């Protein structure tokens, strides 16, 4: 299936075939990372602006490398703090950037919906690199690519997403993507970290780690933010870790031997993941990061109008 959308804003709005187009394109681009000269001319003459309103090392770097390997000119625009704090409004910043005629704007913003706002204001392609607790589509795509490589297919797989579901854009994008591709999803965590009406998203809900990880193909652990403790959502990191931390013992006792352990990073070692699990044989955390570049190349390529074949020319 071809790609016709102007923007990549959410996984929720995509058809299953569109998700597969993105994943397949990313899969075909992975070999570029192994080349001696990591450069293809697909996006030569195109301008990509990385507009990051939130701190991010991994995602911004990943988009930057992806753009550069495709020969695009990549400009990083970091706005520290909110647009309001900076004085210039988000909409004004957007219009100013639009006036410089970029081909793609990659946006990360603490406010849910900010990329959608940008997509309405700007005629160029917009990529959502994470908005509030809404969506993080490229993270879900790289997770899906990782799962398919390890498991060979999507249909029928079961996944447990564990931790702070309420504040996680990664969880939302993955839930939508996994459901669309025929996987079953269980979200698990203390009730204060499960959003209201989570079942309406099409998942099962579990309040016990041991139950949630039993017999699933994939366990995705989410990062726990310290702020949640101060907001009164959990009593202490200690208690969270005791009941929700994934350890080798718990894995051995309850999980399947071929389970995949995923984490969008950065990992709080000793909180949601014990170091032995993070670095252990089940973990595919670094595969996820590597696939992130391929996924972002695929997204930039499809949105900036290049044809997939050019990458191999």
């Amino acid at each position, binding site marked *: 299936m071809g790609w016709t959308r102007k923007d990549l804003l959410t996984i*929720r709005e995509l058809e299953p075939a569109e998700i597969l187009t993105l994943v397949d394109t990313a899969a075909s681009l992975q070999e570029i990372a192994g080349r001696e000269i990591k450069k293809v001319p697909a996006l030569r003459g195109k301008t990509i602006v990385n507009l990051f309103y939130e701190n991010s090392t991994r995602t911004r770097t990943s988009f930057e490398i992806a753009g550069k390997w495709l020969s695009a000119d990549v400009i990083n625009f970091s706005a520290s703090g*909110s*647009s*309001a704090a900076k004085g210039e*409004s*988000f*909409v004004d910043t957007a219009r100013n950037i639009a006036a410089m005629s970029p081909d793609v704007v990659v946006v990360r*913003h603490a*406010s*849910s*919906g*900010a990329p*959608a*706002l940008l997509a309405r204001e700007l005629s160029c392609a917009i990529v959502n690199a994470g*908005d*509030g*607790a*809404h*969506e993080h589509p490229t993270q879900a795509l790289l997770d899906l690519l990782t799962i398919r490589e390890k498991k060979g297919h999507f249909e029928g797989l079961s996944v447990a997403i564990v931790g702070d579901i309420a*504040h996680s*854009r990664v969880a*939302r994008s993955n839930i939508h993507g996994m459901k669309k591709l025929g996987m079953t999803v269980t979200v698990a965590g203390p009730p204060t970290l499960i*959003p*209201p*009406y*989570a079942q*309406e*998203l099409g998942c099962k809900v579990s309040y016990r780690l041991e139950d949630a990880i039993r017999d699933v193909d994939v366990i995705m652990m989410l990062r726990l933010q310290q702020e949640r403790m101060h907001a009164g959502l959990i009593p202490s990191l200690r208690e969270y870790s005791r009941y929700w931390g994934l350890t080798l013992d718990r894995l051995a006792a309850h999980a399947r031997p071929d389970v995949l352990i995923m984490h969008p990073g950065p990992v709080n070692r000793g909180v949601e993941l014990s170091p032995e699990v993070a670095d252990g044989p089940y973990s595919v955390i670094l595969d996820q990061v590597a696939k992130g570049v391929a996924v972002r190349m695929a997204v930039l390529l499809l949105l900036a109008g290049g044809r997939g074949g050019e990458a191999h020319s």
Partner: protein
Amino acid sequence: MTTSMLIRGGRVIDPAASIDAVQDVLIEHGKIARVGGGLTAPEGALQLDARGKWVCPGFIDMHVHLREPGHEYKETVATGTRAAAAGGFTAVCCMANTQPVNDNRAVTDYIRAKADSEGVVRVYPIGAVTRGLDGKELAELAELAEAGCVAFSDDGHCVMNAELYRRAMEYTLPFGAPVISHAEDHTLSRAGCMNEGVVSTELGLPGIPAAAEDVMVARDVVLAELTGAHVHIAHLSTAGAVRIVREAKARGVRVTAEVTPHHLLLTEEAVRSWDPNTRMAPPLRTKRDTEALLEGLADGTIDCVATDHAPHALSEKEGEFDHAANGIVGLETAVALMLDRLVRPGLLPVSTLVSRLSRDPARLLRLPGGALGVGAPADITLIDPDATVTIDPARFRSRSRNTPFAGWTATGRPWKTIVGGRLVWEHVAEGQRP
């Protein structure tokens, strides 16, 4: 100018007198002189052919923000009252969250002087409950009442201190002016910017549970019972709050309530557009809530419709949803939307809507008007039930344009607005006179 006017042949809808019939209305010296069939116009009287139109007691919006003094870039008494007239309202009550706050007589006097010199409809100020709306010390409530405040409210804020709120209710008992509650428990609503529900979970926006409202409505009902004071709950938005008010009224508690057109006509689904004009406090709720609100409005649990007209500049309503200001303008859209979406499909009898917009607010606040009886002020809202209007914010009289209803089409709209016997606004079709 002429001092008399005869409105001929219109359908007179006056719930206070249980009249719904084609009749004539004679106005003399700014008051209703006669209502009946086949009236003859005195010499020199202005004659208004109202055949096919509805003639109603002037509509009263008991909850608007005129923004003056202090936020004149959003709205002024001049622009806000013109918006009111164009929306079919002959009187408005303006909330105290101005800058400075209307928590002392000087500000009340200023608003009333502005209304006298620049306003085109009646303006009744609402005084603050607490100084600076900070919820800590009572404002000078007796002097505010003497200066003409018709109610007291920290609208926009909720007086979280129950003891202080109790004292406010007791202190204002002799004035016959209700305390109006913006019922929102801030410890429950926190940073929320929309209803907590399926949509907030999908969009990843922090939610405000219905319980944030229900808890406070319950508290205020209990305090009304304790003090014997009249407590009015502003902008009811939840099925739970409707249930609590209904139960309290059945027990004889002096509680009344209002609902806005937007809480009747929109749900949380509208937020999927990310349009900051779908952000308000309280937030848009669910279909179950809108149904309960409509039921409450019909059965009298909810006493009146008020717009919570909340003008904001474009810059405050075009950016990130969670940074946007709360509220929308309502004066120029309310009547047409309610006629089209509630009365036309038979969900609400027209006489009930007219009552909730005129007689009932007048009764709650002891205002003149609200009826077309002989000797009443000649405040009259005329409706063209067959005219179709497409809502175009560019044509608003209000200084602000923040509405989620742009582009909506409605059949039935205000036609002319008369205040004290004077025509203060009339609909001019596009392409006709300016």
